[in-house]
């Protein structure tokens, strides 16, 4: 690894480390009650303990179970949304009539905060994984639909002409021009959607989970005034979110839009 490749990681790590130090300091001087604002060291200690096999009184590897449950709901919901919504968005981008009819609906759902629909979904489907999944799908679908449609429309018409004049059929144009041409938008949409899905899964778990899930755990720990466990959950949410956002998507972008030189990210 040369200097250029590890530097961003170094900055990411250092910035989080410094934030942790700051937190520790605030907790140490006890501006706020220690129970309400535990030091980061105690939070991490609790996190390690919960991640381990446990003392035999409760389920073993409890934190891993919570994480597993959350990631399962997140990824299943997200991939389902990605598949269905990309297709809907592409169709909207290709067909003007479909676009005109669907756009108002999509826009409306885009601006409804995800959490507002949770009570209704619980009423319809009860508590449990199914409800969590549905909320995740709903939360992540609309940004993907929206950006996919906008992406198709952003493709210059002459690019389609260039393909047509080479003899490309409609399907060939879809695969060789429309989809790759929409890629920068699709990536931005999926990035936005994964962030939304992550928020949705935690919110949904708080209200609709019955045994596992990080959101459930945070809310459940409140009953016992176990702030260290609550913060441990929050730390896990942050770390996984950071991983999804900066590692997973950075990689996908690196092998697509950055390589093509069509990335929208600029250092102004």
């Amino acid at each position, binding site marked *: 690894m040369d200097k250029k490749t590890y530097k961003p990681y170094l900055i990411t790590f250092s910035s989080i480390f410094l934030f942790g130090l700051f937190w520790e300091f605030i907790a140490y001087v006890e501006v706020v009650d220690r129970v309400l604002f535990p030091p980061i060291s105690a939070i991490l200690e609790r996190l390690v303990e919960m991640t381990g096999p446990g003392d035999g009184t409760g389920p073993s590897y409890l934190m891993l179970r919570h994480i597993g449950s959350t990631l399962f709901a997140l990824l299943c919901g997200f991939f389902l949304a990605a598949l269905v919504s990309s297709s809907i968005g592409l169709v909207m981008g290709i067909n003007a009539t479909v676009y005109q009819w669907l756009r108002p609906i999509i826009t409306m759902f885009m601006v409804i905060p995800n959490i507002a629909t949770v009570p209704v979904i619980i009423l319809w489907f009860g508590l449990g994984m199914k409800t969590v999944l549905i909320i995740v799908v709903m939360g992540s679908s609309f940004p993907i639909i929206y950006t996919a449609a906008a992406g198709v429309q952003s493709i210059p018409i002459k690019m389609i*002409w260039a393909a047509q*004049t*080479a003899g490309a059929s409609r399907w060939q144009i879809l695969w*060789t021009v429309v989809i790759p041409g929409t890629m920068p938008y699709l990536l931005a949409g999926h990035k936005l959607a994964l962030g939304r899905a992550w928020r949705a899964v935690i919110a949904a778990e708080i209200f609709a989970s019955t045994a596992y899930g990080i959101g459930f755990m945070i809310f459940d720990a409140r009953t016992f005034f176990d702030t260290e466990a609550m913060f441990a959950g929050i730390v896990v949410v942050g770390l996984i979110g950071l991983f999804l956002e900066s590692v997973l998507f950075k990689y996908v972008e690196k092998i697509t839009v950055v390589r093509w030189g069509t990335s929208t990210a600029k250092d102004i």
Partner: protein
Amino acid sequence: MEPAKPTKISAQNICKTYNPGTAGAVEAINGLSLDVADGEFVSLLGPSGCGKSTFLYMVGGFEKITSGSLTLDGEQITGPGPNRGIVFQEYVLFPWQTVARNIEYGLRINNTPKQQREAKVAELVKLIGLEGFEDVFPSKLSGGMQQRVSIARAMAYDPDVLLMDEPFGALDAQTRNRMLVDLIDIHQKTHKTTMFVTHSVEEAVMISDRVCMFSSRPSKIKEIVTIDMEHPRSVTDARFVEYQKRLLASLADEEHERVQQHQ
């Protein structure tokens, strides 16, 4: 005199209005007629915004004519197809594909075997002078380099008709002259019917069998000058200078007209 070649492209009294019947209607072409013989090299010259690109797009089958008749091999042009290759004024390469992939696009579309594709790419990359850039993405190329890739892409699948919209516009004088010589060479070998839009009178006289001068918008063809000179032509030849003078004067008239219209 050699026997007359059959007509390849025939435009009869064509008109083109963009966005007809709306407030944004633009009458680009009004009553344009032109017959291009098979194997002929025709240049289109005219003031900016007169409708040269528009005419090319109609021959390409991308834009529909508003009225008149436009045929290719005796059949009305209804849409684009691989019997025509086009070089756009703005290059329009596929940014997600490398130089080689862009060039062989048409060959992939028609399922040409890999070996033939590679041979064709190698040949064309050499022609456009971009050896060593095969695996580079267009965003890393200069405007002139992109333009050359776009020329290669249009020629790769061997269309009957080449439509070129200011293909040398972004090239430096040296590269342009080399490409011009190469294009004359290719034309003499392949005899592809070519429509070549340019702003350079010198280019037009150097390369074409006939030069069509467009009038200002809404345009028609104002005059057609047959360049009766053998290749290779020399810019210092007295006849060359004469053709050039005549076309420059005609172009200046039209530019004058256009400016007056705006006032």
